[in-house]
């Protein structure tokens, strides 16, 4: 059995094992350590000894035994310190039991909900999701986010402690709360994807393993909630965006804008899958922001050339998006679409309005778009300055190199 197959199997089982142990015994924080140790034991033993007949059962048994050991040393230490571990039962646990027995697949989803609990910061939600649901080790997560392992260890243990202290019960959030919590889950997956796709720091533009992990987790949530339009929309958006990755950077790692990309390099399988997903989701019920963004990505991906892009439809979709989300990035993208349909001047007028929004006024992307539009109007001097202003505002080296190159071209 090759290591890679064992690894795939373990990553899929990780949330199920942790979910089963927490459902049975509680102690989210300690159970998480126990589950990780069981996964590590399997990762070293299975490639050598073969995969047991019931791998999930094997992992749950080993994790449960390990949990017992960890709890005993913890409780013994607490008794020595003469403090007994006490917590107050959350009021919701006094409510009547749920009306149906839990399915195994629920465990993975409940875990995902726990990891994206509103008491945690987005950075902690991301780290905990990657570890508890994704089954990544702390070292792997630290590497992906370019922080020292000790920093990531502290972040994860604080997050686990907070979940324990908040006393949230291991069960599906009730009705209206579930929608809200699902929004948080999708947002975390979206952030993980973006961190991988458009790295905010460091020398390489894409940390592809994070994007791949986000796609894997989105696929998992989609399997569990196949009829949720926004879950489908998010998965489609990730696939349709990631499809362009092979064409997005040149041989020297430099950034290539979409209009200049070699479309033959785009991932046709991802485009086909993403288009099928969004086509299936759109006619069903309320259309949320992920579905709209996926629809826009699909229009870009399906255009045979940049010139053949259906900009009026993209503009219309951005206008719908503006109505349901107050996001300055959406407004910025709409300005680009308007410029492509009605001319650069119309786009620049919209940018002038956006400059008052302090959420984006200092963002390099606003300056980069203005530079492009100024270049379209033929104002080379103003465009040159804007490209340089944009380059000063990004921390990404590939983006700095791209923006400075555009500026240099105009001063020739």
């Amino acid at each position, binding site marked *: 059995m090759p290591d890679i197959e064992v690894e795939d199997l373990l990553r899929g089982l990780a949330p199920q094992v942790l979910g089963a142990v927490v459902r049975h*015994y509680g102690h989210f924080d300690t159970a998480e350590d126990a589950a990780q140790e069981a996964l590590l034991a399997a990762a070293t033993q299975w490639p050598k000894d073969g995969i047991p007949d019931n791998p999930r059962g094997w992992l749950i048994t080993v994790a449960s*035994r390990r949990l017992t050991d960890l*709890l*005993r040393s913890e*409780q013994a230490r607490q008794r020595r310190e003469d403090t007994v*571990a*006490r*917590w107050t*039962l959350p009021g919701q646990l*006094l409510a009547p039991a749920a009306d149906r027995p839990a399915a195994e697949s629920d465990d993975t989803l409940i875990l995902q909900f726990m990891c994206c609990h509103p008491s945690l910061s987005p950075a902690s939600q991301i780290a905990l999701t990657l570890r508890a649901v994704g089954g990544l080790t702390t070292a792997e997560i630290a590497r992906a986010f370019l922080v020292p392992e000790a920093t990531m260890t502290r972040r994860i243990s604080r997050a686990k402690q907070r979940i324990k202290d908040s006393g949230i019960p291991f069960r599906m959030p009730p009705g209206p709360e579930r929608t809200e919590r699902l929004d948080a889950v999708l947002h975390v997956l979206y952030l993980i994807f973006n961190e991988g796709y458009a790295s905010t720091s460091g020398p390489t533009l894409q940390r592809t393993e994070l994007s791949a992990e986000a796609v894997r987790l989105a696929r998992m949530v989609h399997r569990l909630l196949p009829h949720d339009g926004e879950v489908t929309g998010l998965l489609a958006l990730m696939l349709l965006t990631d499809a362009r990755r092979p064409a997005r950077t040149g041989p020297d790692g430099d950034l290539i804008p979409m209009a200049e990309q070699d479309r033959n390099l785009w991932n046709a399988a991802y485009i086909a899958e993403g288009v099928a997903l969004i086509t299936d989701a759109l006619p069903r019920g309320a259309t949320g922001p992920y579905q709209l963004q996926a629809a826009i990505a699909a229009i870009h991906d399906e255009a045979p050339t940049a010139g053949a892009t259906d900009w009026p439809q993209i503009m219309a979709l951005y206008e719908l998006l503006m109505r349901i989300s107050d996001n300055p990035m959406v407004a910025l993208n709409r300005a680009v679409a308007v410029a492509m349909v009605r001319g650069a001047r119309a786009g620049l007028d919209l940018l002038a309005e956006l400059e008052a929004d302090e959420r984006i006024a200092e963002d390099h992307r606003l300056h980069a778009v203005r530079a492009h539009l100024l270049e379209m109007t033929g104002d080379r001097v103003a465009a040159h300055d804007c490209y340089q202003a944009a380059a000063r505002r990004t921390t990404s080296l590939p983006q700095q190199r791209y923006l400075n190159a555009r500026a240099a071209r105009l001063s020739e």
Partner: protein
Amino acid sequence: MKYIILTYASQQDYDGIAGKASDKSAWSAADFVALGAFMEKFNQDLEESGELVETRGLAAPVHTRRVGGRLQEGLPVVTDGPYAETQEVLAGYWVVECESFDRATEIAARLGKAPAPEHVAARAFADVRPIAESRADLEG
């Protein structure tokens, strides 16, 4: 009449059965297999005689939550793992339905023949208690 037969063990006893030595030595593989076979036969006999209502073993004492009656900000207080390592606590039970307390006692006495290492057998015991079927039984 229904009776409940209760057996007890400490966390250290659980460890011993799981093959881990503490202040008490661990069970050998032979001890463990013999106990399993004995219990299987014991339960099977009770089932055949129609006296077994239910039997269960409990997870290790370390996995215990004690829910107190005392309130803190209006909600019950829960204590994790309230038992000391050597404290003997409920480990398992049988609910039997049989003609008399004496018959229930006879059933429980068979448990005394359960194979076990000497240091465990010497201290093992079971309690038999009649089950109150109704409020009238309690008030009787």
